[in-house]
């Protein structure tokens, strides 16, 4: 069993910096969990506390039902894949992969070496076999006798994956393993990692700052900010029902459009979109919304742009167009607000010219207003 329980786990560095604040999470055996968030949010620190590379200031970490706070990393049955591969530069690929297994042998040590026992020979042969099999799965058999400096970035990362795989741990930990690779290689390796998860069925905890990586890999994702868990849920939940403004703005590309508004009877008064703008609330949504300030969140793919006036559309000016081949991202000035729309290719839209923006509120979100903008919670809706 390789479930992981984090119970009010905290990390405070000497000097008072609180990197992780009371994180309570439960990961099921075999789940692929992605810890995601901007730099400095505490995701790597949390991962390292699970690994045992970082001391735990408060709370408990349990792996497979047993509290591991005081266990050294080698006794926690975890394997880690690092961002900069961390391959031993003076050892061949084969040696890199077998190193951990060699250290854990039952028949190691000088006595066994002197005795040259049969058991020792068998153990070494088994280790060799494991390394060869794993190398074959990852397609790096030809590289086994090379040194890391003779490998490309992608090859090194495969070796790093192999090194973790041979150990057959209860938990795999990944610390931004693909950040050093180019975009194409990253997508290729993402598929490899997913394949690895499918094959091993092991629990995997993966750290990244790339929300797209999180969305494509995760069974569940944990969005963090400033050491606090903002939301833990499936990618669909984090995308479709973000807990607060931060999660809404972090998950999904391009970033959600946020508009200051005031909720009134049956409508949203949004003067920033143009004097006197009132957006009608879709029927049935936000049935119990109190009157007062709120922030409207609309995803770019719910904003329509046309060169001609359309019913219900707002006057806008096209600031910039980013052509992406099969679609375009259009940056608009709507009143005093800036919005991004993701639309199909339309040659009639041109930078600097007038356009008409239609906002579809069907999948929009409303957030409380005031204080720390990012922490503003999403206002409950009929689906919640």
């Amino acid at each position: 069993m390789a479930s992981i329980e984090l119970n009010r786990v905290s990390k405070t560095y000497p000097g008072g910096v609180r990197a992780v604040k009371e994180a309570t999470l439960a990961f099921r055996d075999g789940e692929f969990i992605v810890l995601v968030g901007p730099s400095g949010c505490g995701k790597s620190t949390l991962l390292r506390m699970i690994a045992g590379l970082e001391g735990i200031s408060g709370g408990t970490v349990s792996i497979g039902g047993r509290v591991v706070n005081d266990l050294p990393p080698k006794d926690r049955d975890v394997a880690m894949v690092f961002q900069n591969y961390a391959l031993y530069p003076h050892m061949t690929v084969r040696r890199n992969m077998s190193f951990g297994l060699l250290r854990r042998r039952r028949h190691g040590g000088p006595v066994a070496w002197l005795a040259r026992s049969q058991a020792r020979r068998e153990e070494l042969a088994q280790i060799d076999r494991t390394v060869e099999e794993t190398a074959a799965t990852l397609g790096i058999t030809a590289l086994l006798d090379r040194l890391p400096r003779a490998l490309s970035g992608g090859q090194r990362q495969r070796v790093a994956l192999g090194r973790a795989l041979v150990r057959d741990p209860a938990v795999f930990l990944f610390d931004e393993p693909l950040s050093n690779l180019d975009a194409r290689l990253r997508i290729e390796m993402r598929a490899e990692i997913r394949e690895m998860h499918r094959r091993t069925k092991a629990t995997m905890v993966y750290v990244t700052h790339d929300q797209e990586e999180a969305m494509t890999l995760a069974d569940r994702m944990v969005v963090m900010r400033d050491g606090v868990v903002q939301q833990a849920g499936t990618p669909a939940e984090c995308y479709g029902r973000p807990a607060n403004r931060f999660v809404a703005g972090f998950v999904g590309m391009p970033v959600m459009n946020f508009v200051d508004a005031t909720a009134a009877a049956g409508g949203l008064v949004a003067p920033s979109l143009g004097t006197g703008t009132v957006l009608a609330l879709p029927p049935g949504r936000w049935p119990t919304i109190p009157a007062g300030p709120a922030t409207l969140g609309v995803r770019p793919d719910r904003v329509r742009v046309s060169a001609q006036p359309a019913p219900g559309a707002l006057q806008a000016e096209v600031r910039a167009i980013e052509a992406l081949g099969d679609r375009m991202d259009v940056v608009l000035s709507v009143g005093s607000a800036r919005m991004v729309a993701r639309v199909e290719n339309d040659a009639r839209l041109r930078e600097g010219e007038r356009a008409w923006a239609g906002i579809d509120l069907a999948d929009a979100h409303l957030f409380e207003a005031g204080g720390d903008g990012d922490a503003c919670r999403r206002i409950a809706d009929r689906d919640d």
Partner: protein
Amino acid sequence: MSGRRHPILGTACAWTLLLAGTAVFVYPLLWMLGVSLSTPADAQAATVEGGFVWPSDPQLGNFREALAQIGSDNAAEPLRGFKDALANSVVVAVLVTLGTVLSSSLVALAFARMRFRGSRPLFLVMLGTMMLPGQVTMIPLFILFRNLGWVDTILPLVVPAFFGNAYFVFMYRQFIAQVPEALLEAARLDGLGWLGIWWRIILPLTRPVTAITAVFTFIGCWNDFLAPLIYLQSDEQATLAVALNSFRNQYGGVTKVHLLMAASIVTMVPCILLFLAAQKQFIEGLGKGAVKG
């Protein structure tokens, strides 16, 4: 300056300087070689007048005669003295080199990577010991070793080497600081403790520093005259450096220059060989640049 505008002139300047420098360094060695192959009279003349002598008839027998006269007198085994001195030098130099490399790298790992209270002040204190002239500690150390009963053994020469050498600790530390932390973390996950990390990761990765440390320590120890003179009192214990002293007469003068030169050349050979062997190592290592994971 010449160089870019007058490539020929620039190269000529460089070559002139290099040749001049080489000549300055090589001349004493050639002088030694010349004197060692001369007759006693010619050698004495060269020494007194300071001229350069190159014998038309090289006296190769000088070498055998010199080695026979080193150290203790033993008619039955003429080269006994030389062999003893050679063995002593080798044992002491090898042990000191080993001790210095092992202890300095270990201490440097602690300073570079271990976080403990007082680490910084301790490091500065250690650096401070580099400012101490050896002469200041000579007498207190002798008293210490005499009280321990270690005089006339090689222990006073060898044991301190196993307690770290500030200069080399500093060098190792700078090098170890370049090793990525992730590498040590991976090692920890693989089950290594500090000693394992030192032996299997740090030492292999700091080979250039080890080469430098070994060469300088060996040569320094091989040539060390003062410490063996003080602590090794019997003839059988003497190292080569001390044994060469037997060519001086009781007034401190040198009458058998040709033999002294011959013996000195023989004494130099191991150091030259060691340097040639290690040279490839540390030049190659320094060229590799920073260690990447």
